[in-house]
């Protein structure tokens, strides 16, 4: 086939290029700009090279926030992925209950993030919140505004409540896309439920699980709104995750240079982790 070449076709790409430039490249370049220079206002900049990066990467404050972030994300993934998968497996495939379950599952996802934070803030208050009162009435001393452990417990619980549904919905979609004939074939072969899960459902869910883990990893690694509303990063710094620390640095202390450098490091960590994970999961496909 002969292809026609017409350079005017490039004009068709221009709108997309402009959009990407305005919503991604230009803001990103601003950050890069701040991260390698020092500014004292009035739009006067001095070249500072990689000093801010060195400062951020060597700061204990950053290390601590990063460690908290990694622990939080790991906890969230460890709880939400198996739990979401289990709920999806337990959900009905046919009948009137399907839509009821789906709507119930989707509800937490529809609530604005700051509202989720506010809800849990009140829900977990030890004196007037239902959850806080309940736990204390069981004889366990619980006050998330004072105890780091209590704050972590509440934060993780909130995230699980808010986001497990996403894993459920993705897994459920994967499960219903498995043709009935597969289950029937397993039944004819006399396969037990565990074998059905291991050899039919899990392989078929590989792709949706990869997506679910990726999405949950990225979102939990970037968590900000809910935690700020719930604990404000406290008590002390105990729930100050990377994004909260970043905002404190940029807007609280107005350290724009280090904050910009931290933003870039933050971004690169997420990018690298997502890429690594995706490549590892999909490695077998290519062969």
């Amino acid at each position: 086939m002969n292809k026609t070449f017409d350079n005017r076709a490039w004009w068709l790409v221009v709108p997309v290029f402009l959009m990407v430039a305005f919503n991604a490249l230009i803001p990103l370049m601003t950050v890069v700009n701040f991260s390698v220079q020092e500014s004292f206002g009035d739009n006067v900049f001095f070249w500072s090279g990689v000093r801010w990066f060195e400062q951020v990467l060597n700061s204990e404050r950053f290390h601590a926030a990063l460690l908290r972030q990694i622990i939080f994300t790991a906890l969230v993934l460890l709880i939400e992925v198996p739990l979401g998968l289990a709920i999806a497996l337990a959900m009905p495939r046919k009948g009137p209950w399907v839509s009821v379950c789906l709507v119930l599952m989707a509800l937490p996802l529809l609530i604005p993030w700051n509202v989720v934070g506010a809800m849990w803030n009140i829900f977990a208050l030890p004196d007037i919140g239902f959850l806080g009162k309940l736990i204390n009435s069981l004889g366990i001393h619980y006050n998330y505004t004072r105890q780091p452990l209590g704050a972590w417990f509440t934060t993780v619980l909130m995230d699980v409540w808010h986001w497990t549904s996403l894993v459920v919905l993705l897994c459920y979609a994967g499960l219903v896309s498995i043709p009935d004939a597969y289950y029937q074939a397993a039944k004819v072969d006399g396969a037990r439920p565990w074998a059905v899960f291991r050899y039919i459902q899990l392989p078929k869910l590989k792709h949706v699980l990869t997506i679910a883990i990726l999405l949950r990893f990225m979102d939990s690694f970037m968590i900000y709104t809910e935690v700020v509303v719930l604990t404000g990063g406290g008590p002390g710094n105990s729930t100050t995750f990377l994004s909260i620390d970043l905002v404190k640095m940029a807007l609280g202390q107005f350290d724009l240079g280090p904050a910009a450098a931290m933003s870039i490091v933050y971004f690169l960590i997420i990018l690298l982790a997502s890429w690594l994970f995706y490549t590892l999961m999909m490695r077998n496909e290519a062969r």
Partner: protein
Amino acid sequence: MTLELRNVAKRVGAQTHIHETNLVIAEGSFNILLGTTLSGKTTLMQLMAGIQKPSSGEVWFRGRNVTQMPVQKRNVSMVYQQFINYANLTVYENIASPLRLAKLPEAEVASRVNKAAELLRLVPMLQRRPHELSGGQQQRTAIARAIVKDSDLILLDEPLANLDYKLREELRDELPKLFAGRNAIVIYATTEPTEALLFGGNTATLHEGRVTQFGPTSQTYRRPRDLITAQVFSDPPINTAKVVKRDGEIVLSERIKWPAGKAGTAIPDGEYTLAIRPHHISPIDHGNGRAMVEGRVLVTELSGSESVIHFDLNGRTWVSQSHGIHPFEVGSTARLYVDVEQSLFFNAKRELVT
């Protein structure tokens, strides 16, 4: 030593999926369920295997009532229209899976898998995974899994429907050989009359959840008990017309009639539905006992060696299928010769009259 369905019926809510059915199927036989989509082939198979339980009636196997016995305990294997294999197991492990579930010793597993793989020409692919195989090879793997465990009952639910033409022919040739010499009852569901004729064996024709006839394939084809059976078991569709037999003649209309011939003489005078298979109508006059009809040509389909001519006869669309190339112009009037000795006559109850 048989599989027997006694008054088996399946109802779901207000709908009847399978009407009361009685079938006796001999061991070691190849049986075809022929019917259109939704005629109940799959349901009937699942009732035979115990994947579904009948709403009423009993299933007997080798003199035992197995109606309540679940499929896992019945030594059944099944091949589906979709290519169903375990995605993350190799071809070898896929074929071995029923044997592993039966906990056979490793040496036995290896020898059986290799034998099945050889029969289905899968030996070079044994270490691959299903997604690295062609559709034909995937279905071969599924078939190998079905024959590896010496099942009593092997169900094949339109196994060739998703394959392309060449592969379908190839597997169609091989399938009967695979099952020859086994004790298993083989049930093969298909929508294609041609497939049933190629396989031989026995054919049960299904229509709207009813088995209309069951018997040796050639007999079901030649002597359909009723009009529905004749229609299900004909591709292209069988030609029909309301006729009157009187004065030794078969009369379609004032202008279209022919001498009754041997087939027509045997029946008393009266009204009938006449059915003639498309390949008994030809543009060439082969002589003895053929009646000439004239019809307006609606469509001509020419393949390399065959002509299918759709024509209008007295307000009905009839089809002629014949060897050779007969390029009739659409809209022209064709002269076609009907082999009237092959006529089938059905009475008002749509039963065959002989």
